[in-house]
């Protein structure tokens, strides 16, 4: 039996975990340059929350959740952008254990990070790096 996990808990844990990794660089959910005014900051977006459903009428017959959150690492300098992305990569890729700290955390079996691509946005004058992180959560 596997109950549906609470996505609100995911959000709190992601925010806490990312903040802990790259402190003092600020971490925001979903916002962009219109909101953040710092030279370096990270935003994240959660997607692909899905526990596979199995046969029968009982709702809790499900598999594990493997949600993915995208991290967008912004910086006014290319080097800081890469350094912050690397810091996240080093801390998160392959991580197993308490995710999200003592207050909001839960156990994950593995965090799997994919470094997607980097770029530069001419309108907001920021270097950016995009990464995906998939969590494997025992349920």
């Amino acid at each position, binding site marked *: *039996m596997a109950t549906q996990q609470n996505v609100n808990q995911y959000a709190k844990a992601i925010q806490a975990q990312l903040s802990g990794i790259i402190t003092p660089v600020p971490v925001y959910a979903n916002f962009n340059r219109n909101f953040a005014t710092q030279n370096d900051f990270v935003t994240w977006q959660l997607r692909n929350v899905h526990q596979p459903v*199995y*046969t*029968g009428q009982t709702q809790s017959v499900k*598999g594990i959740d493997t949600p993915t959150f995208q991290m967008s690492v912004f910086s006014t300098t290319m080097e800081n952008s890469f350094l912050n992305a690397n810091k996240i990569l080093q801390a998160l890729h392959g991580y197993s254990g308490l995710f999200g700290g003592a207050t909001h955390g839960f156990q994950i079996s593995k965090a799997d990070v994919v470094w997607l691509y980097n770029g530069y946005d001419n309108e907001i004058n920021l270097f950016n790096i995009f990464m995906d992180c998939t969590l494997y959560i025992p349920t």
Partner: protein
Amino acid sequence: MALPNKVLPGFSASLYCQASATPTPLSTANLSVYASTSALAVSANLLPVEAIPAFGQDDAMANFNVAGSRQSDKIPTQAAPTSMTITAAWNPADANLLLMRGDAYNGTIDRTFIISATDGTNIVNYAFNGRVGQFSVDPNPTAEAKCTFTIHPRGNQYGWSNNT
């Protein structure tokens, strides 16, 4: 209506197993009695399986040839109820999966299993007595760990029933 009179999605079927480490399986007659089988098809007895595999009866026949006769004859013979290899998401503490593990270790425990399919209102039950012949765990890291077990039904010990 006696039987679900609709084409059912595969999702409509559930698998239940009789409780207890030392169960007394239903009699062959009771495997076809809805009141007997539905009493076992309760949520506490649910096996958390991914999908119900093919169930029913196997094919078996003998082929007779007579010299001088152009056509042979195929005679149905002793057909076993279909063995079922079942995959479940593995929760090591799930009480019913622990029963399957214990049955596989023992090898001779007869237990009644029920496959119950419903359109939401009416229910059809396929009940059989069987033994568990395999229990293995596949911890492929791309998804949840799966445990696979195979149930071999005992010969002549299955029945169909429905709510009325």
